[in-house]
């Protein structure tokens, strides 16, 4: 019963519950260690050893090389496109539910006009796709009391030239987020492509997407092929069952 109650809480409410929990925990009185710390310092515990200059230089070079290697690895692991982030990692420990374009997951169903008014930006609609068959609107996470971010999702039903994305009735879905805060995080286990000319990323292996909304975080499996790119402050994510070239054409990112 209480688990159900806790599960229904928003992140904010669950956080408040944690806050209320702390004074209820068994805990010793606050420490008073200033005296002991001072005594330990006065006693000169663990004095720093002076290393020979040759050894110091060797250690510094090794540390610098390690730092460069780590930075290079990190750059390959995380790609930040403002509201959308791609993380390359072997596994995600959370349990995915259904496809994100099941509809409900992406917020309330609205018209494109309503979405434009609420989002504060005009969603990009690829000319090739035409008017979307479905539009949803949801607010991004409110962590750290920052203003809400708005996510606009659009979907087009399958049709000739736009094959169905497995597990959905749609042939294409496009998610758009404006701003710097992560609203959508993609967890990709396999290598993916950076399309330098198009300034985009192409993920054609099954992966998971984490949606950070006001109502909490949900994780969904993604089976379609995904193109992610940025246009100014807007991050865009197009999912289709098309090959890379066709997806680039659809997004208007091809160089003719």
């Amino acid at each position, binding site marked *: 019963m209480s688990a159900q109650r*806790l599960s229904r809480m928003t992140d904010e409410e669950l956080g408040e519950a944690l*806050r209320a929990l702390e004074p209820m925990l*068994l805990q010793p009185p606050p420490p008073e260690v200033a005296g002991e710390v001072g005594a330990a310092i006065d006693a000169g515990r663990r004095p720093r050893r002076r290393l020979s200059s040759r050894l110091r230089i060797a250690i510094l070079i090794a540390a610098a090389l390690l730092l460069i290697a780590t930075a290079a690895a990190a750059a390959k692991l995380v790609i930040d496109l403002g509201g959308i982030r791609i993380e390359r990692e072997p596994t995600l420990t959370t349990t995915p539910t259904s496809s994100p374009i099941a509809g409900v997951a992406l917020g309330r169903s609205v018209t494109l006009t309503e979405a434009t008014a609420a989002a504060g930006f005009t969603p990009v609609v690829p000319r090739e796709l035409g008017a979307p068959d479905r539009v949803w609107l949801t607010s991004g996470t409110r*962590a750290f009391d920052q203003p809400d971010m708005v996510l606009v999702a659009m979907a087009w039903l399958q049709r000739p030239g736009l094959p169905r994305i497995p597990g959905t009735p749609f042939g294409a879905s496009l998610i758009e987020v404006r701003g710097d805060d992560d609203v959508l995080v993609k967890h990709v286990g396999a290598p993916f492509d950076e399309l330098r000319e198009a300034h985009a990323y192409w993920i054609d292996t099954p992966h998971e997407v984490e949606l950070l909304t006001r109502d909490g975080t949900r994780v969904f499996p993604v089976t379609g092929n995904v193109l992610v790119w940025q246009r100014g402050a807007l991050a865009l994510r197009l999912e289709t069952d098309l090959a890379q070239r066709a997806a680039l054409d659809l997004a208007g990112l091809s160089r003719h």
Partner: protein
Amino acid sequence: MYRDEIVTQPTERASSQEEVLVALARDGDEHAFGELVTRYQALAARVARFVAPGVDVDDVVQEAFVKAWYAMPRFRQGAPFKPWICRIAANEAKNQIRSARRREALVLRETSAGRDDRSVPPPEGQVLAREDAEALVRAMNRLGSNDRLVLAYRWLLDLSEAEMADALAVPAGTVKSRLSRAMTKLRTAIVAEEVQA
């Protein structure tokens, strides 16, 4: 001399005071460092309790500050002290878990009067139903120390996003996804506890 100035100027902003204390401590002023210990020992203890409940908190906090003293010359001038000491305390608590080779759990204090006089009563207006508290503690105990730490930084210690990034030693952009993931794991643990019950 600096200490006298700090004491006789009560209107000086706390952050400026701290910057002076940190600058003095970097130069080897033990009294200034002692003031920092007094200010932050309770915070360090809260970090240790969430990372490694059951360890000797006094020992962790003392060791953390001794390590901080020896690291002070390398402390970046103008950087905030709070996330730095959180990070050292968390690392020290993790070290103690490793050396103890056991992991203790968070435990709720007894409700009957007199069982734990030293504990602080819940603040007014922040009452969590006992049943919910028990479920939440069981779920928290299912989480790893890193996830508990992220939740504690955000919800209990009220660290800002930038402070969390410093304390966790991760890029600022990663904090939200870490927090979000820890919240998801907590929710999963709550459901798992219910199924098991």
